């Protein structure tokens, strides 16, 4: 949904990948945060801790 005229294909791909990684990390953190607020900690692989 954008106009990618200003950047080359490689640049666009790069930006897309970086943005995707950042968003993924943010949601991963969000999952940990929300569950720990509720006293339900998670392991690194998001399985219930303990």
């Amino acid at each position, binding site marked *: *949904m*954008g*106009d*990618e005229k*200003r*950047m080359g294909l490689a640049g*666009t791909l790069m*930006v*897309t990948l970086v*943005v*995707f990684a*950042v*968003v*993924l990390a943010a*949601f991963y953190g*969000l*999952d940990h945060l*929300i*569950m720990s*607020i*509720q*006293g*339900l900690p998670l392991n690194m692989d*998001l*399985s*219930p801790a303990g």
Partner: protein
Amino acid sequence: MSNDMSGRISWPAIFSGRLWTLLLVVMLTVAGAQTVAQAASHGMGSADSAEKRIAPVGRVQVEGQPLIEEAAAASAPEAPEPLAAPQPQRKDYPNIGVSSRAVVWIAAQMHLFFGALVLAVPLFVLVIELTGLVTKDERYDDMAHEFMKISLVGFSITAIFGGTLALALFLLYPDFMGYMMRVFGVQWLWYAALFFVESFFLYTYYYGWNALRYGNKKWVHLTLGLMLNAAGMTIMVLANSWATFMMAPSGVSETGVVTGSIWEIMKGPLWNPINLHRFIANIGFGGAVVGAYAAFKFLSTRDPKLRAHYDWMGYTSNFIAILAFLPLPFAGYWLMAEIYAYSQQMGITAMGGILAWLFIVQAVLIGTILLAGNFYLWSGMSRTEGSVRYQWMIKYIAVILVICFLTWMTPHTLILSAREISVLGGSHHHILGPLGIMPAKNIAVNLMLIVTFLSFQLYRRSDKVAVVPWASAANACMVAIYLVAIANIIFVGVYYGYFTNTVYKVGSSVIQVASTLVVIISGLVIDGFLYKGAKRLPSHWGQVSDRSQYALFALPIAFTWLMGLMGYVRSSVKTHWHVYTVMKDNSPDNFIPTIGYAGNMITLVTILFLLFVLFMFWIANLSSTRQTRPTTAEGGAVA
């Protein structure tokens, strides 16, 4: 872009901008409320602290030490006032030949429909008026005035049904009302007084509209509107406290003896969740009803100018309705969580007991609302030429909506009785079982909300072209947020919902809600910056299909029916109690009626409401109708 472009900012965009901010505030409020609800449920562990606090007391205070004979003599003759809640028997309930509950049901529901309408309309009218003031665009002011005009008679109708309801309650449930009067005492006077206050501000606000139109006087007018809303809101929360007291009494002992102050009685565990839920729902309901008015006027005229006006009015109404509707499930979630925290028994009666089938009907209604809202947005894209860029996505949105809708409708597995289990051949349906339980429904509901927001976002984008250099990065970010949020909702729902324990299942639904909120909030923020000073494509109000207007009729009908249905469940979770655990309902109607009976009742009140709303609109148009003076020629012809 050219200078004259940036100078001329079109009005719907600005208007929407203000409302987006409002949406943000509402969303954040709900998010905050969520946190509070979570915190509260953590505090649940301290429920026994009260017991500890007043654990065995060793010391006894003896004042005066009167002789026992004296004490007995002193207390025996003066018959003590009946302090506990009365426990009327069946013969104590007046019998009028028809079901008392049905009579009260109809009166209460009509009062509630109109009450909700006249509380909501001044609220968004005030916001629209303020928008008009800020943008200096008189069309807002005129539309706000028109909204007020068409709902004005609603205030009288509300009062009439309120009086009818009170009369019916006092006649048909005298013991119960006597007890409520005793518990709430002086609060009733405040309630009555507030009606006078509200009427004062209502009439000054409406009739002073043109007299207080410009300059400082406009601020006086806005203040009147604010006071009108303040009075209305106070009336609503007072009335809510009666309903929540009946569901979860506070400030009284186990036998119903008043032990707390009026504030403790009002501030029960369900009061604020109901307040928030009704507040938001009222706005959506009000928006939907005035939207139907606009649609009706749109269809009734061929004049392009009027069609443009009513198209815009209908769009605005739909905008308000959907905007209020999106956070509603979260408010409902909080209410349900508080009900469970108050009494697990009550929560299960609502969600897993005989009332559980009702949520299938609820799914049909909410599905209707979302489909109608989305359909209206898609139709609205025809107003602008820039929408072709996004048309291809509509079919995917539609497919996701329908799949989620069907998942949501899949019957919940229930246990009603041993007999029913044997009929079903087990408590689970073999194939539908996994789709029928909560995690699947949570996924479906959140995805429906997300794609509805996507429709919204696409509609808003359809008449703009971003000019900022980082547009493609922002778009990549938006796409990533949508995809990751959807993946997260599905992953969390499936993993915690089916493969871990119950505690994690419940806890993970908060993640799903948060993911949805992240999409909505980041969508608003990103688009807010992305389209600052964007190039605008021409759009044409009034250029929309007649068929799309029927979505604006579907919305209020589904809203009205939904309110009726939720009223049925809210009242039914009390089971056979007038005031839960305190005052038993021994009337002939103390059972929970079947969903079919309730459906017929709800249809009856919905159609009644429809007729009264038609009357209200008719009255509003009557004032601007002027009979042409009969000419002598005509007079002669008659003679």
